[in-house]
């Protein structure tokens, strides 16, 4: 970056001033108050903003008011131009704070102007250099340079290292602040810090927790103890109950002893009696009851038996006919059928009358059919459909034969008539043919050829010959005129050809010559040749006329003599016709054509007529001949047909005969009259049908009669069987017998009813007798079982046993009664124990045992109480623990304290890490950046001091700058003289600026930094500055003339501007 122009419109005292910077190094020289420092501040303000009102010393407000600000024009390293216009805002708006009118315009090499922001400016033009960095390293006044000196020596290092990196002191202040904050939070053995309080609380809580942690084990301990005590309590409980139960037994024993003695006695007596008496319960009473019952039944039985005897006697009095009674129902049935059978008999008589009438009718009918016929023939005839069909077929066969025969006879008649007419036709045509033939022969006898083809061939030849003859005649007439016309034409042609030949020959010579002259040898030659050829052709043309005359001569020879033709003609004619007239005509033709031409023509005409007539006749002849042939053929055909018809008739006759034979056979087979025609038979079928109807009626009647007969017979047979009459008895007599029998049967029925009444009375009596006897048996059994049960042989023994058993029961009752009063509510074991005691101990011993047990029981009770108390205590302890633990929040509190501690620790950690990082970053700076900077600074320092000092050294860890003197060795920078120290720091600044790793090379502005330098060192400083100006723009401000002079002499390229 290079500052090119400053336009100060109002800044401090300067108003409307413009400064141009043209050289790499510029010296602004002027007296005090000329505004040098103002210009420095102006540059700062233009680049980083006009300081706010809070910094009036740096703000440089124009004292008289007016516009405050100006324009700075700079050129960046890439060649672009930056124009920064900055004014403070007007007074009214200034109160609002940061208000300035700012316009930054970047114009690049191509001339494109872009508005930029302050950030862009700092980043691009100033390479990220901060305002303070710029102030402390680049735009330096003596104040800033000397500021270093006022710092503590131990802080100097950091200040120096970080000069321009955000304000050196910051780091020291930050570190101090961090350590203060950290100390507030925690110190290893601190007591007042927050952490210490928390830790203390935690310690206390942990003690509490260790207590509460023991709850569980205490609880478990208590629990196990409780279990044990419970166990012991239950043991004591058992002991106690055992004792008390024993005591109860003893008391009881004492109490029941008198009863027990009584019981013992009864038991002994009971022991004397049989142990088990199997006497039935209430045996005596049951015995007596049975006896009473027995007596009652016996009485009743006797009574009933008497009544029964009486009834039986009455029964015996009634006599009955057993057979009749058996037949009774049968009889009744027969009597019921009686009337019916009578009716049947009447019917039977009617049927036989009817049958006789029908039989007569049938006989008549049979007579009608055939005298020899009986019923069997009629039945055989039957008239079945097949039979009828057969007869019908025969009838049809006969009818068909008649019809066909009739047809054939008619046909034969017709055919023979046709034959006759055909024969007549034949005869007629034959006659016609003959006649025509004869007339033809007569008329055309002179014609030589016999057949038509022969004649036609001769005739054709003749005609063609006649044609040729006529042609020859015509040719000969036209030939003479033609010869004369040809001669004139050929003469003219010859003249023309000759004239052309001459012309062409001349051209033949002249044109090649001209061509020769025109240097075209080949053309001349070829032209010559062509013309020669033309000439030859012309010459030939002239000679051709002579050839024409030659062909004429040939023509003349071609026209031959017509006489030959005529000869041939006439010979042909003669071969055709043998007529003398025509032959003479032919002969005259032979003599010469000239005069017989007319005759020839007429004869030819005659001949044509003749031939045509002949041909017509021939055709007619042919036609009648074919007619004859056709008639003959027809006759033959008809003859054939007639004979075929006759044959067919014969065949029909044969068929008829066979049919007739069959029919006769059929008739005989059915025993019919031989001559009977089928039609008659068909009629017979009608009769047969009637006959059959009659037979059927007869059969029906017979059948009915038979049934009736059977019925009557069966009835009679039954009657006979029942009535036991002889076989001959029949009809009415049987019926009357039956009536009698029936009356007897009614009587018997009356008797039976009476008997039945007596039986019905007798029945209950018998039943009761039976019932009573059964009861009797039962009672006997019961008595026996009673005896068996009592194991008594008889009733006496039974009664004795009864008495004994009564006594036993009495004893048992008393024993039971005593037992109940002694032992009721006591279990069997305890009873046993009680009995043992009573058996083994007398009254005194019992008393003693009772007392002892009472004492023991008392002891056990006491022990139980003790244990209960212990249990109670343990339970209380356990509950206490449960209660305690339910309100125990110590662990949670500890956790809270831990959380607090964690917070503190985190805060501390952040601070500590921050401090640590600052320390580490510093050490990085010291290690990495220092050597390079110091090396550079050392060379500059050496140059500035004219070699008095070799180098600048930084002592690691001490943050001290040491200058190494050529002779005196290391000297602490704080001990250096003011000028030397300033030189040292200047060297350091040059070095730092040089080692800045920023892309932009920022100009340096020095405000009279060399005032404390001696002449030599000032010169050295100027030399160094001049050299550095090669790399960056340097602007120096001074009020010292000598300095200006020195600059002028030492740095010739420097531009000096006086203000």
């Amino acid at each position: 970056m290079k500052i090119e122009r400053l336009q100060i419109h109002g800044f401090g005292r300067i108003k409307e001033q413009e400064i141009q910077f043209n050289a790499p190094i510029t010296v602004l020289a002027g007296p005090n108050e000329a505004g040098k420092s103002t210009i420095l501040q102006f540059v700062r303000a233009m680049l980083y903003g006009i300081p706010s009102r809070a910094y009036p010393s740096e703000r440089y407000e124009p004292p008289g008011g007016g516009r405050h600000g100006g324009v700075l024009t700079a050129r960046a390293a890439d060649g672009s131009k930056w124009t920064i216009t900055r004014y403070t805002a007007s007074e009214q708006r200034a109160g609002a704070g940061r208000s300035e009118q700012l316009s930054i315009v970047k114009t690049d090499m191509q001339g494109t102007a872009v508005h930029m922001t302050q950030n862009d400016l700092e980043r691009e033009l100033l390479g990220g250099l901060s305002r303070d960095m710029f102030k402390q390293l680049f735009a330096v006044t003596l104040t800033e340079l000397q500021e270093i000196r006022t710092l503590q020596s131990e802080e100097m290092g950091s200040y120096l290292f970080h000069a321009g990196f955000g304000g050196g002191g910051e780091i020291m202040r930050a570190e101090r602040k961090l350590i203060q904050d950290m100390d507030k939070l925690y110190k290893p053995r601190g007591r007042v810090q927050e952490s210490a309080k928390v830790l203390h609380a935690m310690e206390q809580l942990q003690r509490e927790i260790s207590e509460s942690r023991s709850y569980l084990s205490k609880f478990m301990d208590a629990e196990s103890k409780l279990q044990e005590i419970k166990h012991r309590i239950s043991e004591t409980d058992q002991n106690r109950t055992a004792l008390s139960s024993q005591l109860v037994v003893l008391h009881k024993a004492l109490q029941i002893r008198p009863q027990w003695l009584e019981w013992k006695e009864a038991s002994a007596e009971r022991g004397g009696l049989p142990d088990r008496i199997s006497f039935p319960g209430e045996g005596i009473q049951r015995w007596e009851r049975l006896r009473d019952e027995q007596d009652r039944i016996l009485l009743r039985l006797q009574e009933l038996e008497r009544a029964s005897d009486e009834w039986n006697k009455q029964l015996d009095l009634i006599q009955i006919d057993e057979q009749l009674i058996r037949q009774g129902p049968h009889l009744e049935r027969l009597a019921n059928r009686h009337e019916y059978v009578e009716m049947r008999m009447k019917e039977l008589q009617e049927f036989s009358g009817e049958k006789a009438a029908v039989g007569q009718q049938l006989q008549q009918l049979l007579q009608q059919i055939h005298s020899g016929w009986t019923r069997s023939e009629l039945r055989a005839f039957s008239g079945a459909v097949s039979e009828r069909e057969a007869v019908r077929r025969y009838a049809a066969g006969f009818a068909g034969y008649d019809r066909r025969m009739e047809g054939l006879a008619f046909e034969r008649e017709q055919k023979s008539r046709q034959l006759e007419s055909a024969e007549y036709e034949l005869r007629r045509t034959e006659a016609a043919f003959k006649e025509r033939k004869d007339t033809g022969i007569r008329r055309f006898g002179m014609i030589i050829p016999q057949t038509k083809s022969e004649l036609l061939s001769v005739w054709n030849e003749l005609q063609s010959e006649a044609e040729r003859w006529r042609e020859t005649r015509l040719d000969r007439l036209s030939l003479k005129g033609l010869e004369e016309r040809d001669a004139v034409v050929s003469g003219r042609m010859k003249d023309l050809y000759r004239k052309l030949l001459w012309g062409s020959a001349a051209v033949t010579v002249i044109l090649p010559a001209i061509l020769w002259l025109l240097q075209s040898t080949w053309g001349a030659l070829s032209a010559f040749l062509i013309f020669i050829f033309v000439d030859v052709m012309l010459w030939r043309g002239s000679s051709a006329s002579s050839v024409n005359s030659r062909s004429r001569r040939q023509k003349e020879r071609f026209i031959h003599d017509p006489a030959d033709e005529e000869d041939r003609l006439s010979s042909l004619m003669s071969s055709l016709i043998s007529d003398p007239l025509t032959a003479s005509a032919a002969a005259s033709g032979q003599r010469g054509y000239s005069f017989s031409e007319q005759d020839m023509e007429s004869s030819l005409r005659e001949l044509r007529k003749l031939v045509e007539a002949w041909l017509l006749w021939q055709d007619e002849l042919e036609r009648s001949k074919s007619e004859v042939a056709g008639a003959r053929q027809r006759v033959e055909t008809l003859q054939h047909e007639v004979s075929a018809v006759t044959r067919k008739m014969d065949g029909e006759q044969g068929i008829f005969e066979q049919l007739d034979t069959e029919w006769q056979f059929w008739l005989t087979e059915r025993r019919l009259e031989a001559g009977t025609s089928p039609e008659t038979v068909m009629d017979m079928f009608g009769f047969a049908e009637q006959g059959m109807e009659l037979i059927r009626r007869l059969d029906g009647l017979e059948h009915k009669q038979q049934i009736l007969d059977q019925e009557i017979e069966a009835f009679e047979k039954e009657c006979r069987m029942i009535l036991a009459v002889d076989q001959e008895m029949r009809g009415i007599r049987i019926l009357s017998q039956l009536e009698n029998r029936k009356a007897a049967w009614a009587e018997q029925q009356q008797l039976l009813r009476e008997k039945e009444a007596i039986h019905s009375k007798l029945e209950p009596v018998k039943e009761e007798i039976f019932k009573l006897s059964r009861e009797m048996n039962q009672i006997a059994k019961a008595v026996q079982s009673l005896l068996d049960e009592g194991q008594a042989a008889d009733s006496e023994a039974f009664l004795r046993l009864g008495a004994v058993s009564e006594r036993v029961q009495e004893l048992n009752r008393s024993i039971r009664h005593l037992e109940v009063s002694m032992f009721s509510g006591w279990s069997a074991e305890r009873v046993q124990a009680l009995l043992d005691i009573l058996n083994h101990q007398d009254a005194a011993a019992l008393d003693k045992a009772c007392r002892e047990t009472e004492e023991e029981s008392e002891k056990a009770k006491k022990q139980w109480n003790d244990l209960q108390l212990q249990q109670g205590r343990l339970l209380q302890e356990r509950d206490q623990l449960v209660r305690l633990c339910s309100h125990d929040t110590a662990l949670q509190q500890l956790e809270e304290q831990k959380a607090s501690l964690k917070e503190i620790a985190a805060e501390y950690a952040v601070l500590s890490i921050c401090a640590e990082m600052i320390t580490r970053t510093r050490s990085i700076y010291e290690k990495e950046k220092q050597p390079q900077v110091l090396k550079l600074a050392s060379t500059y320092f050496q140059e500035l001091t004219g070699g008095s000092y070799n180098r600048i050294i930084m002592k690691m860890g001490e943050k001290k700058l040491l200058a190494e003197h050529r002779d005196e060795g290391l000297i602490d920078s704080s001990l250096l003289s003011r000028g030397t120290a300033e030189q040292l720091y200047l060297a350091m600044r040059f070095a730092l600026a040089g080692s800045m790793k920023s892309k932009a090379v920022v100009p340096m502005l020095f405000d009279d930094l060399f005032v404390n330098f001696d002449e030599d060192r000032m010169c050295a400083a100027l030399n160094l500055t001049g050299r550095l100006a090669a790399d960056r723009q340097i602007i120096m401000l001074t009020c010292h003339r000598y300095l200006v002079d020195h600059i002028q002499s030492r740095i010739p390229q420097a531009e000096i501007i006086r203000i």
Partner: protein
Amino acid sequence: MVSFKFIHTADLHLDSQFKGISGLSDGIRSFLRESTFTSLDRLVELAVSEEVDFMVISGDVYDAQDSSLQAQLRFYEALERLGKHGIGVYVIHGNHDPLDSPRMKTGKREHVHVFGPEFERVTAYRRQDQRAAAVIGGISYPTAKVIENTSLRFKRDKDNSLFHIALLHANIDGDPAHETYSPCTHQDLIASGYDYWALGHIHKRQILHELPHIVYPGNIQGRSIRETGVKGCYVVQVAEDGDVNMRFHDLDTIRWFHETVPIDGMEGEEAFQTQVEERMQEIRRECPGKMSIVRFVLTGRGSLHEKLEEGRIAVELLHELHRRAIRAASEPSGLAGLVWVESFDVRSGPWIDREALLKEDSFLGELLRYGQQARGDMTTRAEVLRSALNPLMANRELRMLLNETDDEECAGWLHRAEEMAVLLLAGEGGGESTDED
């Protein structure tokens, strides 16, 4: 197979403490302490109302190291209540409550089966008709540290067609965020042939696989900022055809939230406070009946950061909010809908172009570059931390505390330290703030 219903829960951690929370009043503290038990009561109520056939608990019922009597008593009380309803309970012991830890000896309960240190298989029955419903396999931790892959011991009963449930307390696929006990992979579990892996140990609810189901139900009550969100158990309905239908039921009494508040563009304290209070109101609306605990993480960059760090407004606001919460909690039923702010985690930075600073050739730039390097490079970071935290290490409690600190937290400290350095060092010289009044 028969259809049945069971509850899968794990990591009850009864009577364990809430971590990272301070400044509580006694009332709130008691409420916190009671919360795990309240959740347990809810679990029992759920089991009863859902009429489940049995319940499986996959370890870590309580923290043995606290040897809390209360935890044991309340747990056995819960078992009694389940027993009264005939609900079977199948329990394994995990790393926090191994078999060798002090435990209350109680009489054998018919309905409770506690698995021993060796693999066992028992049959669970359906309540309504006592038909065999499922085979439950399980194994307990004999000691706190089980480093063997115990899942391999689970073998399915080949002849048994019943639904097989496995109870295991393990870290599947080695989740690095948890201690790796009983390490195994989910392929191991799938290979075993069990139908449902009822797992415990990881407190985050997750279904790792379906058919077979591999399920972490999570714990029933979140106890630190690491356990945010809804907590509860699964009610698993197994149909006759073995189809598994899982429903999650929340049981938690106190819910944890993690809220981010960007400070970008926030002008002053009031805006910040309003924002925080709005968020708290939102949380209150989200779970009205419960107490909520929230951590606010302040992110972004803005002018507020300076006030947060220097003026400590976050700390003051926290104290104020705590005061208010304690006052509200002392009211009757004040705990429902109470929102307790756990802390403000300041991760914001000052309004400075950090990226530009990083590139700048300055002391601060160098420092930030160093910080960046330290955050990436573990050895550098460890070194920085060691020397920075060295004074704290002198104290035993703090040493223990710091040893527990995880990487993320350390990185957070480092970041905050950097921001602090920026704040301290760029205060006057840095950025563009110089042309301000």
